């Protein structure tokens, strides 16, 4: 196994009853890449994200991060390895404020015990200040520092998407999985989002995996693209190559 790949999927499979949602999928992702994952509805893209993050157990196959096996780990341990994600259907903690949303992932990482937090001991008070500062920075980054104490549930759709990315960044991830980040955005917002994803990749030295339906956005943003259809990987390569692939054209337009 080459150590230069940051992520490696090796014959990943998951079936639900008779349905082969992800079928023998292998690929590698290089450090710093923006790696797109496209395919028709129901192709298994989100299931693949769920397998990577430990939310759904694999039926067979492995997934590793810098040569370390992630399959079989509980979701919070995968997150602890530095893998953050957002969701197709936004999953913020709607009853908590924007600030609390970006604090929570940090709390699970800070050192001092929960009990000292309850008792307000000095060590945890210091940590709390660090957490607080970073939370404000992240809110500023996603342009929501003016609304930090508002409940996340009251935000507009676009703001919620940005907050969810901010929350994922609070984990200090090395790998960020974005599930349809541009869904429901207009052309101008999509353009801003593309620039934003590039910007956070530079700033946080991220490797980004991205599920997206909007083809121009994927083509413009991604270094490489993998195409799934009925759970199978049918093409992988640079955007221009993938666009030429007969298998991909068939998958999207229907074969024959």
């Amino acid at each position, binding site marked *: 196994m080459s150590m230069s790949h940051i992520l490696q999927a090796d014959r990943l499979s998951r079936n639900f009853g008779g349905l082969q949602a992800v079928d023998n999928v292998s690929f590698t992702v290089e450090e710093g890449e923006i790696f797109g994952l496209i395919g028709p509805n129901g192709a298994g893209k989100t299931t693949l994200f769920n397998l990577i*993050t*430990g*939310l759904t157990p694999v039926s067979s196959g492995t997934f590793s991060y810098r040569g370390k096996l992630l399959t079989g780990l*509980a*979701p*919070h341990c*995968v*997150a*602890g390895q530095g893998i*953050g*994600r957002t*969701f197709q259907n936004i*999953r913020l*903690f*709607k*009853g*908590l404020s924007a600030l*609390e949303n970006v*604090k*929570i*992932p940090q*709390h*699970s*990482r800070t050192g001092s015990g*929960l009990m000292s*937090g*309850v008792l307000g001991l000095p060590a*945890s008070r210091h940590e*709390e200040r660090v957490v607080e500062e970073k939370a404000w920075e992240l809110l500023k980054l996603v342009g929501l520092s003016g609304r930090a104490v508002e409940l996340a549930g009251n935000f507009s759709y676009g703001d919620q998407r940005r907050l969810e990315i901010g*929350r*994922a960044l*609070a*984990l200090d991830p090395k790998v960020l999985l974005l599930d349809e980040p541009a869904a429901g955005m207009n052309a101008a917002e999509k353009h801003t989002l593309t620039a934003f994803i590039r910007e956070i990749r530079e700033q946080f030295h991220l490797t980004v995996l991205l599920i997206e339906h909007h083809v121009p956005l994927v083509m413009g943003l991604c270094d490489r693209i993998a195409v799934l259809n009925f759970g199978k990987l049918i093409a992988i390569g640079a955007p221009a190559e993938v666009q030429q692939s007969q298998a991909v054209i068939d998958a999207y337009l229907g074969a024959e």
Partner: protein
Amino acid sequence: MTAVQFLQNFLNGISIGSVYAIFALGYTLVFSILGIINFAHGAVFTLGAYLTYSLAVGQFGIGGLFADLQLPFHFSFPFALLTGSILSGFAGVLVERCAFRPLRKRGADPLLALVSSLGVALVTVNVLQYLVGSEIYSFPSDVYGDIRPAFVLHFGEKLVVIRTVQIIIFSVCMVVLALLGYLIGWTRIGKALRAVAENAATASLLGINVDRFILYTFFLSGFLGGLAGSLVGTSFGIAGPYFGVSYGLKGLAVIVMGGLGSIPGAVLGGMVIGLAEAFVPSEYSAYKEAVAFAFLFAALLIRPQGLLGRSHIQKV
């Protein structure tokens, strides 16, 4: 009803209502995390009462395996109450380990945990009966030390009697409510608990060890159940191993009334049920529970989601 009678009923009501509130909060915490009712909560209530009794008094009654057993020590009441409640918290952890976690890990329908928790409740109650017998245990009147048993307020001819135990119950419950409010509202444990309650899967993807927080929740829930049982026991005695059953049902009424999963709702619901019972005239006191449940039905007709519950319109 005269104003003095009203005052007397009101004071009785808020004292017992505050215990209902902390007891019901035990249900609420588990419900808000797992979305199911822990039917073993009433058994933990009973267990807590016996634990506090045995730690405070140091001896058992004439029935069961422990008949006439003397403990080599006994604690002061506050310490016994605290220790009994903490041990009940660990009993709550055992309930999670036996009745909830194995089913959850195997992906069973969450409703099955209702049955398994009911099973744990029955086993607990039966073991208690085997150990301590089924007789009534009453705390000795000097259990609080030298404090006088009651305070009498004079209003001309009329008297309002406040039993010391009522003051103790109310004060302990208020302190516990304040601490719980602080814990859930202001500490990182509380924030993580709220995150797990809102969406456990998302919380786990943000690095929160959900199983650990479920354990914390069951500890808190057991602590509250055991504390409530101990307080009710000191006020009315422990009417045998089954005495938690009716309180268990009443606790359910409280959380349904207040709104499932709502913490302020559990407190308000506890107070409403406690007051409703207190205002039942003494000649009808045998029907207290029917009155409390009638109140529940009336409230649900007006607000099906409970007094402070959120309506489920947005959930499909």
